[in-house]
């Protein structure tokens, strides 16, 4: 078997006091092959974002404490890298898109300038940077990209802002794209457009995608495999179809039932019954 792109082994990340800490991530292990799409699903506070940020050690320590385990990206342990090595990992190898596209873009710079910065940081060999920026914006489905380079983030809609964030991530040609709840701040129709865009990217490039979400509805038809997190632990993992059809853990069942289904009459929204899970 080939070496996985990403191999997380017994990762533990704590916050707060050393006695009785907040165990945001509590000994999780998972791996991703190159080109694979993995979804991490869990409710709010289950440690998804902490896991995602830890992949390039974006969580400042302190306050975070990396207490155990390893994160091997292409065989190198991220937790052992020096600051300079981390910087060339961030963006170039592992790029992120975040939940709030509006505030993830710098308000005082044009979008063209911000994408240019990403390219100049990681791809100094590019001769015609402007053409590359236009190409990136074109790839994420922004119409008339050349005329939008001078736009400021506040001049764009939320969906377009998220497209710009994706363009910025793609401009560095990363091997792994970490999308941390990329559609949570957007309305439902835009959600679908962004998910379709990510699907397209998955099809046309060999990039791996780590999708983080609390919504099982986004996972079907997108991810190859699913990891379900609950209170810092992985409670279930497996191929998407299998987990969706035959969930083993009661928490997974509850999460799947939370997704409202079209055409199906529901008198009340389902809520998770924690007493049954414990």
């Amino acid at each position, binding site marked *: 078997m080939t070496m996985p792109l990403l191999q997380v082994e017994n990762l533990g990340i704590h916050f707060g006091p050393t006695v009785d800490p907040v165990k945001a991530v509590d000994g999780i292990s998972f791996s991703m092959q190159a080109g694979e799409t993995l979804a991490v699903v869990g409710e709010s506070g289950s440690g998804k974002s902490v896991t995602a940020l830890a992949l*390039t050690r*974006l969580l400042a320590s*302190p306050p975070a404490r990396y207490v155990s385990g390893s994160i091997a990206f292409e065989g190198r342990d991220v937790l052992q890298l020096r600051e300079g090595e981390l*910087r*060339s*990992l*961030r*963006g*170039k190898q592992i*790029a*992120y898109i*975040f*939940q*709030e596209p509006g*505030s*993830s*873009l*710098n*308000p*005082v*710079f044009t979008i063209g300038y911000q994408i240019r*910065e*990403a390219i100049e*940081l*990681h791809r100094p060999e590019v001769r015609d940077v402007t053409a590359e920026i236009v190409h990136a914006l074109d790839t994420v489905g922004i119409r008339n990209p050349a005329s939008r380079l001078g736009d*400021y983030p*506040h*001049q764009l809609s939320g969906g377009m802002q998220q497209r710009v*964030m994706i363009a*910025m*991530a793609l401009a*560095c040609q990363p091997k792994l794209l970490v999308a941390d709840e990329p559609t949570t701040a957007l309305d439902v129709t835009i959600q679908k457009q962004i998910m379709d865009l990510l699907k397209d990217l998955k099809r046309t490039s060999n990039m791996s995608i780590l999708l983080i979400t609390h919504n099982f509805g986004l996972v079907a038809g997108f991810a190859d495999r699913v990891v379900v997190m609950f209170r810092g632990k992985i409670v279930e993992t497996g191929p998407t179809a299998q987990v969706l059809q035959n969930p083993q853990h009661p928490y997974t069942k509850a999460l799947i039932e939370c997704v409202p289904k079209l055409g199906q009459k529901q008198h009340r929204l389902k809520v998770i019954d924690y007493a049954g899970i414990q």
Partner: protein
Amino acid sequence: MNSISLSQETYTQRLWRHFHADKFALNGLRIVILLFIVAALAPFLANSHALIRVADGHVSFPIFLSLEPIEWRFLLYVPLAGLVYFFRHRFIAHPGIFILAVIGFIAAVEIFLALTHPINDPTNDRDRPASFKLLPPIPYSPIESTPDQFSPPTWKHLCGTDSTGRDIAARMLHGARTSLSIGFVAQSIALTIGIALGGLAGYYRSWLDIGICRFIEVMDCFPPLLFILVAISLFESQNNMFYIMAVIGLTSWTGVARLVRGEFLRLSSLPFTLAAKAIGANDFRIIVRHLLPNALGPILVAGTFGVASAILIESSLSFLGFGMQAPTPSWGDILSDARRYIDFAWWLAFFPGLAILITIMSYNFVGEGLRDAVDPRLKMK
């Protein structure tokens, strides 16, 4: 309201639109610019040497021969800066040629200044016979003693003269240079230190923040004027202009540091800072290229108020007799002369006092206008 055109304007355009609507701020800015022009042209507005002099069929330009090196630099480098700004787009396109041209120009000026010496000619062209002479509007030098002592304002001496017969109008014009450049340079020093320390504290937090905050608190324990007086008396032998600038700058950065720290604390916890880190930007880049531009509005406001207070501090120092060395004219210096003769020579206090008042007020109007423009929510309409 035309919301479409509003959403298309850039940050600076919005700033300028708000600023422009504020009549006080706009007129304050006009006065400040006027003061700077007057200060820059002071040697040509008040000088005992003629601009052009024709005698015995011989044409000469006595003013230029008497200019000090610093005045030459002012005269040549300010237009140079203007030119560079005007051609900035071509500058970016051909940086090599432009940098060479600018360096060549500066080198030429400096070599010229090193090889020539200003002619220290004590005679004045007012009284010297000539077939033609063009005198400046105020034909007196600021350090020249005329026979008219304590002359009240007349057509000859527009703002009167002091105890040694020096023309107050000439001293005021040249004093404007002192006051304005001290305000500007001292505040630049304060801004540099304040931004650096405040930025480091706000970005890195933890022990660095604690250390810098305690340092700021210690600095703030001393009344600034007392601090400056002590510093000046320690190095009494060297109280020239640059020394005063440095002392004022080094003691008035704490306000800026607090402000920048607060802004950086806020900005560095916003998602775009994390996003910048996530594309692999280093700390220096994040601080200088991502956070600083976002904090520029409030910094500009603080800087404007700071210039005003630096001018005030310099005037107080001169008034107390700790300011510039004797012949250098400054507004506070004229005021301090007025102290002794106030019972009959009202003009000695009136004109410099008025100049200080107008300058400080203009700067404060500009500062308030900027503050409102940076944060339009403050201005309820």
